């Protein structure tokens, strides 16, 4: 598996699977955001990924990097909120790091996503432990060095690990101590992205 090469079609399947998963889980994401945020994360992700699937269907980019750049741009232009620029930059920067290559390895994808995650950290000023999407993204990208499955598991565990955390960034931080005991919606949607990735890689 480690040597599988991933082409643009794979990345389109990934985004499509992510869109389906976000669609399914939108209610839960909004519910989580309702507890410690403003009850829109499910809708935001849904609106964004519907747009992503549409743009990828319209003009199929030929390279993996192109798919992620197009997806990221689309998220930036259609989501809004905190998650729009953050997820948008994650994918756009990852895609830029992948360059023009028609095919990439899992290791190249890992390195690309690492660039994307760095962009998220830089843009939002958060660090792991702040109860944000980074708590799922950072361990997931690290585990991608081992396998797609491990990355999905690490993302899921990272999302669960946000429950006892006190939020220091994003809206949840306004709640102070009261943010403790709730799972972060953005970390949860990040886990969905990596679950979708593992699913299409099977």
């Amino acid at each position: 598996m480690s040597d599988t090469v991933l082409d643009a079609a794979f990345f389109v399947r990934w985004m499509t699977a992510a869109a389906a998963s976000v669609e399914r889980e939108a209610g839960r994401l909004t519910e989580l955001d309702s507890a410690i945020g403003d009850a829109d994360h499910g809708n935001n992700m849904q609106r964004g990924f519907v747009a992503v699937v549409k743009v990828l269907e319209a003009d199929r980019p030929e390279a993996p990097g192109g798919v992620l750049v197009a997806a990221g741009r689309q998220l930036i232009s259609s989501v809004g909120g905190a998650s729009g620029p953050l997820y948008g930059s994650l994918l756009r920067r990852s895609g830029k790091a992948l360059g023009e290559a028609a095919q990439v390895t899992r290791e190249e994808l890992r390195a690309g996503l690492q660039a994307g995650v760095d962009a998220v950290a830089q843009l939002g000023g958060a660090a792991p432990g702040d109860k944000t999407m980074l708590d799922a993204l950072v361990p997931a990208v690290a585990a991608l060095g081992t396998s797609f499955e491990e990355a999905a598991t690490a993302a899921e565990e990272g999302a669960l690990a946000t429950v006892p955390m006190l939020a220091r960034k994003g809206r949840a931080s306004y709640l102070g101590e009261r943010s403790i005991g709730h799972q972060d919606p953005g970390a949860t949607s990040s886990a969905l992205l990596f679950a979708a990735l593992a699913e299409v890689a099977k």
Partner: protein
Amino acid sequence: MRMLINVAETVVADALRGMAAAHPDLVVDAENRVIVRRDAPVAEKVALVSGGGSGHEPLHGGFVGPGMLDAACPGEVFTSPVPDQMVRAAAAVDSGRGVLFVVKNYTGDVLNFQMAAELAEDEGVQVASVLVNDDVAVTDSTFTAGRRGTGATLFVEKIAGAAAEEGMPLERVEALARRVVESSRSFGVALSACTTPAKGSPTFDLPPGELELGVGIHGEPGRERRAMMTSREIADFAVDAVLEDLEPRLPVLVLVNGMGATPLLELYGFNAEVRRVLDERKVPVARTLVGNYVTSLDMAGCSVSLCQVDGELLRLWDAPVETAGLRWGR
């Protein structure tokens, strides 16, 4: 769902069509979600652009017009707009003297306006931004997202809008806006949660007989839940929270703001208590505004915002304004 809507998905688009029908002096681009004053770009004038999630009306669209904003960019309900909106708005209102973005301090608004500023500057528009962060319920620290932007946004948009209307250059309008931010603080209280169209049920569960202290304007719970308090007690708590952070040495503008579902009758009664506390604390009041200005859909509750003003800020506050949501002067 007790909502006067068609479906959740079209709430913002429907509202924009309704604004267009009601206000011929606005150009409402419902598709691209930009509201622009009809005479824009106004020659030789710095332009003001603001925006944010919908659900806070009349903020921001109701503050577009002579003496206040040149354009507003409404996002989905409680969701920051996307950069494309601000870029389009900036291009539509820039007279060549630059654009000031008035941004409420929320991660989403900050990031989207930041991207928009970069894109607009790429297109040759000079952009400055001012961040409104007035809510004392949230601790200000570089380790956190910082204080939220709430009621004081109205002070900033009004005063900076008047400055721009007077022909001041971008740096001065920006400096004035920043001065208003530094001079303003707010505190909010919820007596009920609000219901977003997308969720269709209250954003949090607040039993009658309890209230939330230190809430924002996005239906998020507050810092603390308590047994219901009287208007008098709430005024003591809220005003003291604001004064602790502001310590005004000058007269203040007072905004007693309704969150959306609290009757004006009650807001006026609350204003009586706010004035009593201010009198007791020996803080002179220059002007008072009571009403629903920076709302949170159908939330019951209120916020108090104070802004200490010198002669210049007061003159700009009193200057004529002609928008759907705020009008005075001649």
